[in-house]
């Protein structure tokens, strides 16, 4: 009988991604309801030193595969390693992050394990001993409650939605051999180009300041960048701004861009097309600054300011600087 709540922990360059602790804490909650163990799979090279950190967030046992072929992440190597240890241990639930890596890996695992997966969940719970996963569909225009009749019941969790809570458990590290054969590994990472400026990715940001058509031109984003610098925020954009060529496609928030859930989302000069609302309405706090009082964005906003953003935003930057000094 399938047993245990498992996670696939995510690390890069020897440091855990925050989602790993969010996964561990969520798994702990589910496992306590079931009266079962939390196990983590950790793959990489030279990762033994960090494996124990997962115990702090409620992991009982860490299955660690340490192999140069597991660094950097490739689908082939990680899918083979995770599928092997999962098949050997038959967990009831398997959680991954809905990060770029987790999305790439989880689909491959669905194929290898012939099971079902709920993508990008914003809530997971146990109902009648089984996983019930809640996830936005149609970019959040409706939600689906997903049940999975096969094992493991898989889900990926949206980053930044589930709290990481310290809850010390043993975190015993068990090494396993991923048994990777050279012929299995087809793709090659030729180069990793790190983004300059060290800004946090939109999907991981705590605060996002987005600009839309109301910014009037690419040169005006500097006022959003200044506010972002004060708040430690990341700057995003609407589809209109991206399609106009003002901002990179990587900055787009919305149904055909990134779906984000920061603690604070400040929409500047964004009218709130349904396409955009779909990508940011799971933000915990929403602020809209727009001179059009009728803009649909105000219906989603916790706080709204009806005024000229070119006057309000620089003042807001000054005020925040004062408050945070």
């Amino acid at each position, binding site marked *: 009988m399938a047993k245990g709540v498992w996670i696939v922990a995510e690390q890069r360059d020897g440091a855990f991604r925050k989602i790993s602790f969010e996964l561990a804490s969520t798994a702990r909650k589910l496992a306590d309801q079931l009266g079962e163990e939390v196990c983590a799979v950790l793959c990489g090279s030279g990762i033994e030193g960090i494996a124990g950190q997962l115990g702090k967030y409620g992991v009982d046992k860490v299955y660690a595969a340490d192999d140069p072929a597991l660094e950097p992440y490739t*689908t082939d190597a990680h899918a083979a390693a995770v599928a092997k240890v999962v098949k050997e241990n038959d967990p009831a639930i398997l959680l991954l992050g809905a990060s770029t890596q987790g*999305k790439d890996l989880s689909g491959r695992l669905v194929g290898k394990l012939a099971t079902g997966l709920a993508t990008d969940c914003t809530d997971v719970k146990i109902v009648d001993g089984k996983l019930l996963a809640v996830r936005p*569909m149609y970019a959040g225009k409706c939600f689906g409650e997903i049940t999975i009749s096969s094992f493991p019941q898989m889900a990926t969790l949206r980053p930044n939605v589930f709290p990481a809570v310290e809850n010390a458990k043993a975190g015993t590290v068990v090494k396993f051999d991923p048994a990777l054969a050279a012929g299995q590994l087809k793709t090659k990472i030729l180069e990793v*180009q790190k983004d300059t400026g060290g800004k946090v990715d939109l999907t991981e940001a705590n605060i996002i300041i987005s600009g839309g058509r109301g910014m009037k031109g690419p040169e005006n984003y500097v006022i959003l960048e200044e506010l972002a610098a004060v708040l430690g925020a990341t700057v995003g954009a609407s589809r209109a701004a991206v399609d106009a060529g003002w901002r990179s496609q990587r900055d787009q928030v919305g149904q055909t861009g990134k779906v984000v859930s920061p603690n604070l989302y400040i929409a500047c000069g964004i009218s709130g097309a349904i396409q955009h609302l779909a990508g940011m309405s799971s933000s915990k706090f929403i602020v809209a600054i727009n001179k059009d009082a009728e803009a649909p964005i105000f219906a989603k906003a*916790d*706080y709204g300011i009806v005024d000229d953003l070119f006057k309000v935003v620089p003042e*807001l930057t000054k*005020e925040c600087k004062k408050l945070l000094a």
Partner: protein
Amino acid sequence: MADEDFGDRFQICPQVSHGKEENVNIVACVKQVPDSEAQIKVKPDGSGIEEGGIKWVMNPYDEFGLEEALRLKEKNGGEVTIVSVGPQRAMETIRTALAMGADKGIHICDPAFDGADAYVTASALAAAIKAVPFDIVFCGQRAIDDDSAQVGAVLAELLGIPQVTVVTKFEFTDGAVKVIRPIEGAQLLIECPLPCVVTAQKGLNEPRYASLPGIMKAKKKPVEVKDSAVLGVSVVSNAKVARFVPPPARAAGKIICGDGTPEGKAAELARLLREEAKVI
């Protein structure tokens, strides 16, 4: 044109060709979905969404994949086969793809596939694709209806071939695929041998519109219709949407007036964010 980040290590469309590559057999998977502007209403019993009044279009991410498929065919020669799982109306989307320049279509049409999960959908696609020669299979990185972002990867596993997902640049030279894949805080340059599955992200290209002669020609292009029995695949989904629910309602917000000046409003907002919302 060299890539802005990777320079001449990633040459897009090199001017000097080293002779025409071999013909490439290309498959493009497409799905018909509600237009991104569509309002989505959940049926009162939570069994699905109301389909009345919805404008159906080709999934935008599949369009990027299809456009890349057509460009590859134009450069290297070869054929583009469209494969789609969907009800009868999905034939319109297949015809659109043929009008854009694809050569033939396979329509996997069977009511048993309604509500199919990613594994079942990918099994059906894999069974259809195995019956045609294929070197590269393009999919959208996700469909904008169920947003599951799984089918490309499951399909690659079922075909037993590698995948490169969510790519923003694509190049095919010397028998291998080179792509750029953005991840959190970085971009990866990845090389992948054929055959493979490539899933397309926005930014890859600007999809063309179907031309009038294209639309006329599309009417005569062959489309095979297959059901689950012909494909010999299971239709039993493990993952099910037990219930559809409307999104949680947000409480009405506060319009900040302050003293009526932009300065006053900004000061009031900063104070509320700090003291009431506690988010800064």
